[in-house]
C-alpha cells in the first residue's frame, strides 16, 4: 500500500513538473528555448512511464501462474509428424513493463540532449565573459 501511494505521488508530481517546464519554455527565447524544447516533452514522458510502472505493479496482484492460452498444432507432412506449441502469458502485463523501461530510456535521451545543448550554451556565455 505504501509503495503504491509513493508511486501515485511521483506520477502526480511528475505531471506538475511538466507544467512548470512548459511555463519555462514559454518564457525563454533563442538557443535557451531550443534546449528547453528537448527537456519539455521529457518530463510528461517520465510521468507517463511511472504511471505505467504503477499500473504494472497493480496488475501483478491479478497475475496468473498458468498460461492464458495454450495451443498445440499437429502437422503431418510427407509422413513426418511434428507439433507446434504456443503459449500466451498475460501479454498486456509483460508488454507494459517493457514499454515502461523504454519510455524511461526515451526520457533520459531527451533530457540528455537538452542538457548537452544547455551546457554548450552556458560554455559559450562563459567564454564570452572571459
Amino acid at each position, binding site marked *: 500500500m505504501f*509503495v503504491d501511494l509513493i508511486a501515485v505521488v511521483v506520477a502526480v*508530481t511528475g505531471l506538475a513538473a511538466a507544467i512548470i517546464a512548459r511555463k*519555462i519554455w514559454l*518564457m525563454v527565447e533563442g538557443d535557451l528555448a531550443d534546449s528547453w524544447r528537448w527537456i519539455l516533452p521529457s518530463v510528461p514522458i517520465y510521468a507517463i512511464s511511472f504511471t505505467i510502472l504503477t499500473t504494472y505493479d497493480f496488475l501483478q496482484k491479478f497475475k496468473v501462474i498458468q498460461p492464458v492460452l495454450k495451443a498445440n498444432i499437429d502437422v503431418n507432412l510427407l509422413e513426418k509428424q511434428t507439433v507446434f506449441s504456443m503459449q500466451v502469458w498475460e501479454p498486456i502485463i509483460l508488454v507494459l*513493463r517493457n514499454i515502461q523501461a523504454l519510455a524511461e*530510456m526515451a526520457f533520459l535521451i531527451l533530457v540528455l540532449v537538452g*542538457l548537452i545543448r544547455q551546457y554548450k550554451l552556458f560554455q559559450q556565455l562563459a567564454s564570452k565573459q572571459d
Partner: protein
Amino acid sequence: MSFIAVVETINFFLASVAALASFGILRKVAGNLATSWKYAFIAFQVLALATLLTAIDELGVPSIAGISAHLLRNIAHFVFIILAFFGLLHQYRIIRGLTERGTN
C-alpha cells in the same frame, strides 16, 4: 539477463551522464541559477540509483539490507521527482524575475 535488466542498465549509464552534464552546467553558472542546477545534479544521481536498483531487482535480488528493492526503487523515484520539481520551480522563478525586470 532479461530485456528490462539490459534497458535499465543502459538507463543507469544515461542517468549518470545526465548527472555529469548537470555538474558541467553547475560549474559554468553562478548565484541562484547554480542552486537550481544543484537540484538537477543531485536529482540525476538519485535517478541513476533508482535505475540501478531496478536492474538489481531484475537480476534476482529482491531485497537490499532487509528492505524490498521495490520500495527502495519507488523511494528513489520519489526523491528524484521532488528534487526535479523544486529545481524546475526555482529556475521558473529566476527566469520569471529576469523577464519581469526586462519588461519593466
